[in-house]
C-alpha cells in the first residue's frame, strides 16, 4: 500500500506540471510589461531595460518557466502588481474564511446528502424517492447566487435571525463564527448536496441487489443496519469519488458565495485581482486552488485502499 501511495503521489506531478504550464502561459501572454510597471511611470528606456535584465525577462520562455517553477517550489508566487505584497502572503491572510466556508460546506453537504440518498434508494420508485430526487434536481439547477440571496433575504432581512453579510474570525468565538457561515455554507452546499445525493442513491441501488445483502436480511439484520452499515460501506467508493470531484464545483462556487455574503476570503481576492488585472495574483490564486483540488483527489484515491481492502494496486 505504501508503494501504491507513493506511485499515486508521483503520478500527480505531471498533472501539476501541466497546470503550472497553463498558468505560467497566462502570465507570459498577459498584456503589459512587468518591467515597465516596476520601474515606474518616469523611467527611461535604459532603466526599464535594466529592470528587465535583473528580473530575467529577456530569458527564453522555457528558462523562465523553470525558474518560475523553482520559485513556486520555494513558496514564492511573486508579488502582487497592485499592492506590491507577496502573493503567498496575500493568499495566506485570506485562508481562514475560505477554509472555514469550505469545511462547513463539506460537512453540511455530506451529512445531509448521504442519508437522503440512502433513504431514496431504500424507497426506490416510491413518492419518497421521487420527492428526494426532485429536490436534488432542483438543488442541482439553482445557481449559488440565487440560493444565497434568497436565503439571506429570508433569514437575515425578513426574519433577522442571522447576520446579513460579513465574517467573524474563529478566534472571536465559535457561535459568532458559525452564525456568519451558516447561510453561505448551506447555499454553497446545495448544489454539492444534490450531486452527492444522486450518486449515493445510484450506487446504493447497485449494492442493494447483491447477494450479501439478502444474506444479511436472512439472518435477521435490521434494515437500518443493512443500509447504513453493510450497503453504504460498499457504495462509498463512488460516493467518495464524487465528493472529491465536486470540490471543483465548491471552489468555483466559493468565489461567488464570498462575493454574495461579503466574506473576505480567497474568492474575494480573486475577484479583486480580476477587476485590477493583477496577473501575478490571479495566477497565484488559480495555482493555489488547483493544488488544493488535486491534493483532495489524491487523498480520495488513497482513501480507497483504506475503505476497501479489496482494492490493491
Amino acid at each position, binding site marked *: 500500500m505504501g508503494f501504491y501511495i507513493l506511485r499515486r503521489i508521483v503520478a500527480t506531478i*505531471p*498533472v*501539476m*506540471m*501541466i*497546470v503550472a*504550464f*497553463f*498558468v505560467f502561459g*497566462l502570465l507570459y*501572454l*498577459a*498584456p503589459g510589461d512587468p518591467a515597465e510597471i516596476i520601474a515606474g511611470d518616469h523611467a527611461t528606456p535604459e532603466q526599464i531595460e535594466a529592470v528587465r535584465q535583473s528580473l530575467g525577462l529577456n530569458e527564453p520562455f522555457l528558462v523562465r518557466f523553470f525558474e518560475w517553477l523553482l520559485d513556486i517550489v520555494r513558496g514564492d508566487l511573486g508579488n502582487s502588481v497592485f499592492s506590491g505584497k507577496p502573493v503567498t502572503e496575500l493568499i495566506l491572510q485570506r485562508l481562514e474564511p475560505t477554509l472555514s466556508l469550505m469545511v462547513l460546506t463539506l460537512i453540511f453537504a455530506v451529512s445531509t446528502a448521504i442519508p437522503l440518498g440512502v433513504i431514496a434508494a431504500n424507497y426506490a420508485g416510491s413518492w419518497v424517492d421521487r420527492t428526494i430526487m426532485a429536490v436534488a*434536481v*432542483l438543488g*442541482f*439547477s*439553482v*445557481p*449559488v*447566487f*440565487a440560493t444565497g*440571496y*434568497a436565503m439571506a*433575504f429570508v433569514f437575515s*432581512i425578513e426574519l433577522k435571525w442571522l447576520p*446579513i453579510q460579513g465574517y467573524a474570525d474563529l478566534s472571536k468565538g465559535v457561535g459568532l463564527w458559525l452564525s456568519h457561515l451558516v447561510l453561505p455554507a448551506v447555499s454553497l452546499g446545495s448544489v454539492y448536496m444534490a450531486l452527492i445525493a*444522486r*450518486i449515493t442513491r*445510484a*450506487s446504493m*441501488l*447497485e449494492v442493494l441487489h447483491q447477494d450479501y445483502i439478502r444474506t444479511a436480511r436472512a439472518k435477521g439484520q435490521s434494515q437500518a443496519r443493512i443500509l447504513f452499515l453493510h450497503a453504504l460501506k460498499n457504495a462509498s467508493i463512488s460516493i467518495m469519488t464524487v465528493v472529491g470531484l465536486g*470540490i*471543483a*464545483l465548491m*471552489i*468555483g*462556487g466559493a*468565489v*461567488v458565495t464570498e*462575493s454574495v455574503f461579503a466574506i473576505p476570503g480567497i474568492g474575494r481576492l*480573486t*475577484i479583486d485581482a*480580476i*477587476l485590477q*488585472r493583477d*496577473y501575478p495574483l*490571479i*495566477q497565484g*490564486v*488559480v495555482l493555489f*486552488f*488547483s493544488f488544493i*483540488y*488535486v491534493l483532495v483527489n489524491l487523498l480520495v484515491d488513497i482513501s480507497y485502499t483504506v475503505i476497501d481492502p479489496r482494492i490493491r494496486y
Partner: protein
Amino acid sequence: MTVHGKTRRELTAGERKGEYIAAPDLPDVFPPQRRVGPLTGLLRRNKGVALGLVITATMSLLAVFAPLIAQFDPAAISPMTRLKPPSSAHFFGTDMLGRDIFSRVLYGARVSLTVGFVVALLSSVIGLVIGLVSGYFRLLDGVIMRVMDGLMSIPGILLAIAMMALVGGSLLTVIVAITVVEIPRVARLVRGVVLSIREQAYVEAAIAVGSSSGKILLRHVLPNTMAPLLVQATYVCAAAMVLESILSFIGAGIPPSVPSWGNIMADGRTLWQIKPTMIFIPALCLSITILAINLIGDGLRDELDPRMAKKV
C-alpha cells in the same frame, strides 16, 4: 395453437404448411406496438423531458422575439423613473438608471441561451474529435489525456476567469473560454466510449477485412458515441449558462453594458436589500432554464441508456 401471433384460420396456405416446422409458440418478445415516432414515445413516457422542452422552447421564443415583446429599449436610461416598483408599464420595475428590468431580462435570455447552445455545440464537436483521436490512436492517447487531465485539474470557473483576464470581455471570448473549460469533459467521455467499442468483436472483424481507420471510426465507433454525447451536451449547455452568469456577475464576463442575466444581478448587487427583484428575477429565469435543460438531460439519459438510469 397460434403461429406468429396468428390463429390457424388466419394463416395463409404457405404458412400453414410451414406450421409444423415453425417454432411452437414462442413468447412474444416483441409484442406488436402502434408505431409512434421516437420523440412522441419519449414525451409520453417521460413527463420531465416534455416539461423541460416546453420551458426551453418558451424561453427561446421569448429570447428570439425579445425586440417585439419588450416595450422599452433595454439600454435606454431614464433618470426620471429610477428604481420604480413593478407597474403596468414596467412589469418588473426599473433599475437605478431607470432602465426597464423586464426588457433587460428578456434580452438577457438571448445572451444566456446563445452561450448555452453555442458552447454545447462547439465543445461537443471539438471534444468528439479529440476523444475519437485519443481513444483510437494509442500513440496520441497519453499526451492528449495528460493535457486534458491538466485542464480538468483547474476548477472550471477559475480556468475561465484566468482566460477572461487575458482577453477583453465579449460574447465571443466568454463562449471560447467556457468551451475550453468544457472540452476535456466531453473528450474524456467520448474516449471512454471509444475504448470500450474498439475491443468489440465487430471492430476487430472490420480491421481484419482491411477497413481503414477512418472508415472504422466513422462507421462503427462514431454512431456509438452519439447517445452519451447528446446527454452530455445538455449538461454542458446548463453548465455553460451557469458559468456565463457567474463570470458576468463577478465582472469577468460579458461587458456590463450588455444586459445578460449575470450583469443584471451584478447591477442589483449594491441595492439588493432595498430592491431584491433585480437579483431574484434574473436568478429565477436562470434557475428555471437550467432546471428545464437538466430535466431534458436526465430524461434523455434514462431513455438512451437504461442501465445508466439507475446510476447517478
